[in-house]
């Protein structure tokens, strides 16, 4: 099993979710994060002074998936989250040693 973690633009969340359901992803965990990268931040004005907000709001998605669907999930996320503009975000993949569903105690693939 893999855990796919993606950092995307906040307003793309609904689209990403919608693109994952058809390929069988029925669960995910998301969190509000801030990103720092090439994308220039918004300027905020404070009584004439301007601050660059270097950390931009992003959404982090974490999805545990079976090894064989990793590529299609990455593809789906890329298609849904991409705008072609700097700041679209990144997808990180790493291996899970094990996975447990708390309610039932099911393990690994059954717990997906």
């Amino acid at each position, binding site marked *: 099993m893999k855990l796919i973690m993606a950092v995307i633009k906040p307003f793309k969340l609904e689209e990403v979710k919608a693109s994952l359901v058809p390929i069988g992803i029925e669960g995910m965990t998301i969190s509000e994060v801030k990103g720092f990268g090439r994308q220039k931040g918004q300027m905020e*004005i404070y009584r*004439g*002074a301007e601050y660059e907000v270097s950390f931009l709001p992003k959404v982090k998605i974490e999805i545990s998936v079976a090894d064989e669907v990793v590529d299609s999930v990455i593809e789906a996320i890329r298609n849904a989250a991409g705008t072609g503009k700097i700041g679209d975000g990144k997808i990180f993949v790493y291996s899970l040693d094990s996975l447990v569903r708390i309610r039932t105690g099911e393990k690994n693939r059954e717990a997906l």
Partner: protein
Amino acid sequence: MLKIYLQNKIYLRKISCLSALCITFAILLLGPSRVMAGTEISPGDTSWMLTSTLLVLLMTIPGLALFYGGMVRKKNVLSLVMQCFSITCLVSVLWMVAGYSLAFTDGGSLNSYIGGMNKLFLNNLTIDSANGSIPETTFMTFQMTFAIITPALICGAFTDRLKFGAMLLFVGIWVMLVYVPVTHWVWGGGFLGNDGVLDFAGGTVVHINAGVAGLIAAIVLGRRKGYGVENMAPHNLVLSVIGASFLWVGWFGFNAGSALAANKSAGMAMVATQISAAAAGLSWLLIETIKRGKPSVLGIISGAIGGLVAITPAAGFVDPTGALLIGVVSGIGCYWGATGLKHYFGYDDSLDVFGVHGVGGIIGAILTGVFAIETIGGTPGMLEGNFGQVFIQLEGIFITVIYCATVTFLILKIIDITTGLRVDEDSEITGLDLSLHGESIQ
């Protein structure tokens, strides 16, 4: 600028005499106070003055508490509302104990400089005594709310870094040594009022006073840690807008209430107040849009407050057109005060107490001398040929600035040496809410 003032040697004698006064303060034994004439109470005027009193209280809590609280970082918002609330409590008691008596009773031979001690603890304030057509109790409470908001305004300058105990100490002493005497000079029978300084509702007494004290406090305390590097943008401008709204609405009590009656003067003062606030909000909006490209919420509310400050000394003396012009000028002037001036000198007057209240107060005091109309407030201004009035206004400004700056500086330095002014670095980084009060907002 300070240098220029100091070169005005003609004022130096007055200043030194005032400083002596401030030191010998505690040992004053003053003569009998002026007796207020016991005329008939007017329910209508009393109704309006009871209302005005609570309006001015609303300006501090929650008005100023929110206006300032919304502008600081989330970790310091409670410390600011705490300052405003505790100042309200402290000054109420001090005013009752001694402030009112020293500001508004007859100081006998020293009456040009300070009032008497006849009404300490309000002891001789009977339920029957009157001030014009309203009960003296109501006049006293109305004035109390002015004594509350003035030091509360200063909080904007030393926010995020002043110890709570030192703040209370400073405010207590400052009210007695700066606010009370200046009030007496202008409104209590002292020399500035006698010299003809026009200050309808406290442009000099309240705003220049608070603005200058804020400037000195910002300089003495030094900048906030991280100033100019970290993002210190306001954490919640919705709070500031609520605060600005209550300041605006409460200002009707401040200005129209300063007519001390529900009469035509109050009516005209309210018109002037409304128009100046609106015009200043728009003029700040406009200049900001031109210079920065985007109109900001903080901008328009700052402008409106600047316009309210500037119309304060003028409210009962000018007509609607005068108010419009005062508004336009003060919106631009305060924009410059809060952006240009501050950044040029590099002090951290965190929430622009001097930039808005100091600059706005000075603009207003001068323009009162320009736009005053005889048929409205009894005194003609420069435009009606009375050129001298502007100089009298300048006298009021100069004296207040120098006296306030000097005494504020001394008070702060003495507290710094004795109990210390500034919290330690860890507390400042953690935020004053948790470190000083053990509380935080979620």
